[in-house]
Structure formats: structure tokens, C-alpha cells
């Protein structure tokens, strides 16, 4: 992780005055520069840069600017659930702090400084989570993971460093194929792994001791939004009585409450239509996310502690409604 300078501002990549500020470009640049950064963190970094550059005269003008930038960001980035989480959280954070300061300059300095703190904490959270999740991995465990999650990978790497001996099944995770990069990372660090196709989870689940899943977003009910295939794995794990742990940072808590696995903001509209002719990008237009409800999850390992599903809604309520 790149060290933060004393001034918590990253120099924004070629952006001019505030009105020429391209938030989406800034956001992408941040993501590209730092592969370790998650989407919500990059979003918040870009918003902090925006803050440092704007000259609002009133608090509501600031909130307005912020809201516009957030809408633009959400529109410009596909698959933006965790991004929404980060943005909403930042807006909330700004609103809270604005009320405390009369003078805008002092307020802005405070916000920018605290924005930086927030980023620092967000980056450190993955390590905190790994420490908290360590007791859940024991010698001789067979673990199943899905797709690619940096939080889960971090946890497994820490366990390996602490000399816990375990092995990992990884799902290929079509259509993105992200499971393969997970496998590579784990194998490079000396962890024995095996990649299986998504359809083989039913075959493998009985051989597995526990399942670790990352999350794009954690919903208000304690359920999670994650890469497609997560829901299936959760149902199989529940049926075979294998514990399923979700590993996620607290800034992924999002104000959504889907009612079913497909009840997500629409990003794969084609997947609900039927045609009598084959389409070229049929596989590519498969849905990329699904929702796993909280009754299938054993516990959530987050940087604010190991929570049950109702603990998540409690945290969310405390965060958002006061």
C-alpha cells in the first residue's frame, strides 16, 4: 500500500478548475494507479479531491455539488454497488461535519483531513479484518472461496504466514474468470489450491469445512451482494451444514434491502428476455451480481468486529439514522 503523504491529498491527475473536474476520470486514474484500492475508496478519494477544489459559499451548495458528482460517478461506472456505498457514506460524513463548523475554510480543512483519515482507515481495514478472521481458520481445514476478493485473499495469506496449514478450493467464476487470479495469488504464496468449475460446487461442498465469501455490498438486512454464483454456494453450504463467513469492510455497508437474489438495480436487462435466435454476447450479458439473504450467512467478519446479520442492520441504523 502506497504511503500517504502528510498532506492527505493525492495530486489530482491533470484536472483544471472545479467546473472542468472530471470525477469519473479521476476515479479511474486512482483505481489504475493503485491496484490495492477498492472501488468505494477510490470514489471517496476522488470526492475528497473535488472537495479540495470547490469553492462553495453555503453548506447546501456543497452538498449539492457533492450529490451531482456522486450521480455522475454512479452513472459512469458499471456495477457500482460498493461505489454507492462509499459515496453515500462520504456524503453522510460530510453532512455530519458541516454542522459543526461555521467557517467554511476551517470546515473544508477539517473535512479534507478527516477524508484522508477515512481513506487510511479504509485501507488498513483489510488487515484488521484478517486479524479478526484468523481464529476461524484451523489446521487441516479445507476452504472454499468464490471468485476474487481481496479481503478474503488477505485473510488466507495472513493465515498462511502464521503457519496454519489448509487447502483451498476456488471456483472458476464465469463469466469473469476471476477465480483464476485468486488461485494464482494463493499458489504464489505457498497455499495448496484447486480450481473447480462453478457447477462442481455441489460435488465439492461435502469435502469442504467452511466457505469464505467476499462482498461487493452488505445490505441492510445483513445479506450480501456479490459476484454471481454466491447465492448458489450459500444455499448448498446451508444444506450441507457448512458455515459460510462473509469477509467485508464496514464501508461496504449499503442502504439496499433486496428481497430476492435477482432484486438488484438493473444492470443485466437482457438476461430476463428470451429469443429464438442465438445472440453473440449472450454469455457476456449474463448477470454479474446476485443477492444472498442473511439466513444463509453464519457470520460477517468486518473491521468493526465479527457480526451476525442482525448486528449489521444495527450498525447501519446507528450509522444512518440519528
Amino acid at each position, binding site marked *: 500500500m502506497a504511503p500517504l503523504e502528510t498532506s492527505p491529498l493525492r495530486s489530482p491527475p491533470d484536472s483544471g478548475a472545479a467546473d472542468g473536474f472530471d470525477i469519473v476520470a479521476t476515479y479511474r486514474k486512482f483505481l489504475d494507479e493503485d491496484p490495492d484500492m477498492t472501488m468505494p475508496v477510490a470514489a471517496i478519494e476522488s470526492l475528497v479531491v473535488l472537495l479540495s477544489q470547490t469553492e462553495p459559499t453555503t453548506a447546501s451548495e456543497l452538498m449539492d455539488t457533492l450529490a451531482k458528482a456522486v450521480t455522475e460517478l454512479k452513472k459512469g461506472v458499471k456495477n457500482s454497488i460498493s461505489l454507492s456505498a462509499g459515496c453515500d457514506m462520504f456524503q453522510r460524513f460530510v453532512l455530519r461535519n458541516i454542522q459543526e463548523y461555521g467557517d467554511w475554510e476551517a470546515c473544508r480543512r477539517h473535512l479534507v483531513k478527516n477524508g484522508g483519515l477515512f481513506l487510511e482507515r479504509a485501507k488498513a481495514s483489510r488487515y484488521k479484518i484478517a486479524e479478526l478472521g484468523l481464529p476461524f481458520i484451523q489446521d487441516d481445514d479445507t476452504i472454499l472461496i468464490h471468485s476474487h476478493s481481496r479481503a478474503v485473499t488477505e485473510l488466507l495469506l495472513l493465515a498462511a504466514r502464521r503457519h496454519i496449514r489448509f487447502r483451498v478450493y476456488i471456483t472458476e467464476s464465469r463469466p469473469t474468470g476471476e477465480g483464476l487470479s485468486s488461485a494464482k495469488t494463493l499458489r504464489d504464496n505457498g497455499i495448496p489450491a484447486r480450481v473447480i468449475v462453478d457447477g462442481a460446487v455441489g460435488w465439492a461442498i461435502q469435502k469442504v469445512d467452511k466457505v469464505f465469501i467476499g462482498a461487493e455490498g452488505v445490505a*441492510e438486512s*445483513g445479506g450480501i451482494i456479490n459476484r454471481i454464483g454466491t447465492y448458489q454456494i450459500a444455499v448448498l453450504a446451508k444444506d450441507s451444514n457448512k458455515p459460510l463467513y462473509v469477509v467485508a469492510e464496514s464501508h461496504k455497508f449499503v442502504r439496499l434491502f433486496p428481497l430476492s437474489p435477482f432484486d438488484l438495480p438493473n444492470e443485466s436487462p437482457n438476461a430476463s428476455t428470451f429469443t429464438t435466435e442465438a445472440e453473440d454476447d449472450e454469455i457476456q450479458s449474463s448477470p454479474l451480481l446476485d443477492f444472498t439473504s442473511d*439466513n444463509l450467512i453464519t457470520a460477517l467478519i468486518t473491521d468493526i468486529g465479527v457480526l451476525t*446479520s*442482525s448486528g449489521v*442492520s*444495527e450498525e447501519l441504523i*446507528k450509522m444512518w*439514522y440519528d
Partner: protein
Amino acid sequence: MPEASAKPAAVPLGTQTTKAQQQKGKDKNSAGAQETKAQRKAEKAARRAAKVSELGKSSHLPQEAIAQARAQSQAKQSRAASGTSNASSVGGGSSNSVVNATVSSAISSLTAQSTAIHGSDILDKRVGLFKHLEITRRSGTADAAKDIHPVILALTLQFASYTVIGSSARCRATLRAFQTVIKDYRTPVGTTLSRNLTNHLSRQIDFLITARPLSITMGNAIRWLKQEISVVSIDVSDDQARESLIEKIETYIRDKIEVADRVIVQSAVKHIGNGDVILAFSRSAVVEQVFLEANLRGIEFSVVVVDTRPFYEGKEMVRRLARAGLKCEYVLISGLSYVLNDITSVFLGAHAVLSNGQLYSRVGTALVAMSAKRKNIPVIVCCESIKFSNRVQLDSVTFNELGSPDELMNISIDSTPKPGPLKNWRDLPNLKLLNILYDLTPPEYIKKIVTEVGSLPPSSVPVIIREYNSA
């Protein structure tokens, strides 16, 4: 001597207290003992007969034995009243024993059939499992104490006749009534408003309870009001105190009911999409508003209203929705499984939500929720935070409300009563009717509870109670 009393006549000490025992005793005892017993029996029978004839409307006396017993007890009554001595009783002793046997069987059936002034059954017609829920219900206000405000008298009758029905409606009506009570309240000499008004209100509330038990919303509102009264400062004049209390009640109604409803509607309406078929049970004011708002927004959907006897509250819901132009289907709960195949989601209202996430609502709700869950249909509950209760309850029996069993007898589908096959239920010795008003739905059947502080899973109800209702 005829005595009109609400309770069964007090039996003097020393006599056997149950009818069966008396009957047995009758057969065993000597003539002498039989005579005194006969006299007491006669008086009792006379009292009952008198009471029964007073309440002619509620008793059914088609049987000959009854008529016969009546005639005989009246004869006895006149004999007792004329102060005939033991001698004449002895003279009539032998015939008495025959008469007594019939009289005592008549008495037992009379007792079984007679009802208390306030309309609830005594003794045999109560269902054992729910005996702890029996209350004597009020049907008139003639015996009200002098300090009960007329607006409370009116409200009590409205509650008793189910004119004002529904958790939020009752709460709102009670608070409005209290506003009037507070306006007309004058602190008696020697005490302060903050101390005395609470007692005054408590007496009004005790009277209200005689119509129907308090709803959870009313309980929460009253608790809040009493708290507000207790912190009224000594320095403030009575006029100002009253003004401010009335103002506070107005704000409370606005915030906790009206605005809360609007927020819930905004939130819940997001779950209605084009082409949806939504199931609603009975009548809930909030759910109705959600549908009307969705209709206003131009969403194309239709509603299936499931209704139950004896109140047929769903009819009013259908009437209002249809008037707004919504496509509605109406079905009784017996037809539930038939309509469930096409349902997209279920919207339910609540009387209360308990601290363990259980939903306490109109009887039949649990059935609807369970059937929906079986078919993987999401169940959404809309309720204001004022309906949250700290209570924990594991079944529908420990706390509930009983309605009058005679309401089940009426099979009319409109306002003119039409007695059905059960109209003589009181004559049938082993038949009891149970009219229960609420039931408990376990949290696993509910997907989401929409309140004005946000949408939450049922497991998070204690959080809301802790954070928001800590008044």
C-alpha cells in the same frame, strides 16, 4: 326475592356450591335438610328466572323444562314471599323433591344460558384455554362516573361498537379526545397540574378500557403523554401548560402517525412494479395508502384483498381502492391457496411488532404470511415505529383479545344481521364459540418491515426500540 345482579347469586356458607353437588346432595339428604335447601334453591331459581326474564333478548328459552321450571320457581317465589312457614314447606316437601330435581336441572341450564349485563358469558360457555382473556365488556355508558368527560364516553362507545377500528385510528382518536379533556381540565385546589392531570387521565383511560383493551399504540402514546405531563414545570401557568400539552399532542400525532405514514409510503412504493399482483389482508390504513400512492404514480398493478369474518374489514379496503381506479380482486381467506399462484408480493399491516420480531396483527395474518413463505413470495410489513412493543410473546394465546362470540353467529354479508345455523349455540351444551381478534406471525415468515426510520429485517426490531422509543 328477585335480585338483579351481574354475578351469580352468592351462596351462603355451608351449602354446597355447585349445581351437580346440590343435585347429588338432594338425593342423599333427609327431608328436613331438603326443605331448607329447597327454600334456598327456590330463591335462587327465582332470582335467576327474574334475571333471565329481564334479559329476555339474550336468552333462549324454548325448552319445556325451562318453562316448567320457571313456572314452578315462580310458584315457589310467591310461596316464599308470602312468608309461609316450614309447615307448608313440609307439606309440599314430597312434591318438592320431584320439583327440585327438575328445578335444579333447569337451574343448571339456565345458568348456562343466562348472560351478565355486559354481554360476556359466564361459566360453561367460556373456552378454557382463553379464560384469562375474558373481560366484561361495556355496551352502555349509563353507569359512568361523573368525572368521565363526554368525549371519552363517546369514544368508548365508538370502540365498543367497532366504529373506530384499527391500531393507528384508535391511537389518533384517543389522543384527540385527550386534547379535549386537557382543554377542559381545571386543576383542583391544593394540587398541581403535573401531578393531578395524570390521575385524571388515568381515570378516563380506565373507562376506555372497559370497551376494549388498550392497543399497543395507545399504550405507547399514553406512556409518552404521562411523561410529558410529569415534566411540566411548576412555574408555568395552567393555561400555558395546557396549551403546550395540546400542542405537543398535535405534534406527536403529526410526527408519529401522519408523517410516519408518508415516509413509509415513499419507501414501500418502491416494491411495486408494473405488472405486479399484490396481496393485501383485511384492512390496513398504511397499506391502503401505499397502494393509492403507487396508483397515483401511474404504476400498473392489481391488488388481491383477502378478507375474513366476522368483521369483513377488507370490504372497506376494496371499496376505497376501487374508487381510486385500482384493479381489485376480493376473496375470503378460505380461497387463499387458490389466488396465491399469481401473487408477486404480500403487503401486511400490523397492530404491533413485538421485541422478538413477531408480528401481532388481525387474526388470519399468520396464515397468509406462512402460505406466502411456502411459495417464496416476499412478505412486507408496513408499520409505524409507534407500534413497536417491548413485549416478548411466543404464541397467540398468552395475550390476545376476545370478541363477542355472538358475532360469529351472524352470517349476514351486509349490515342487517342474519342469524345462521349457529343461532342456538347457547343451547348446545358442548358447543363453545371462540371469536379471537389477533394472532402472532413468527419473524421467519416476514422478509422486511418498513417503518419511518428505515426498512429492517424483523431481527432488528429491538434496535429500533432501543434507539428511538427510549422515552
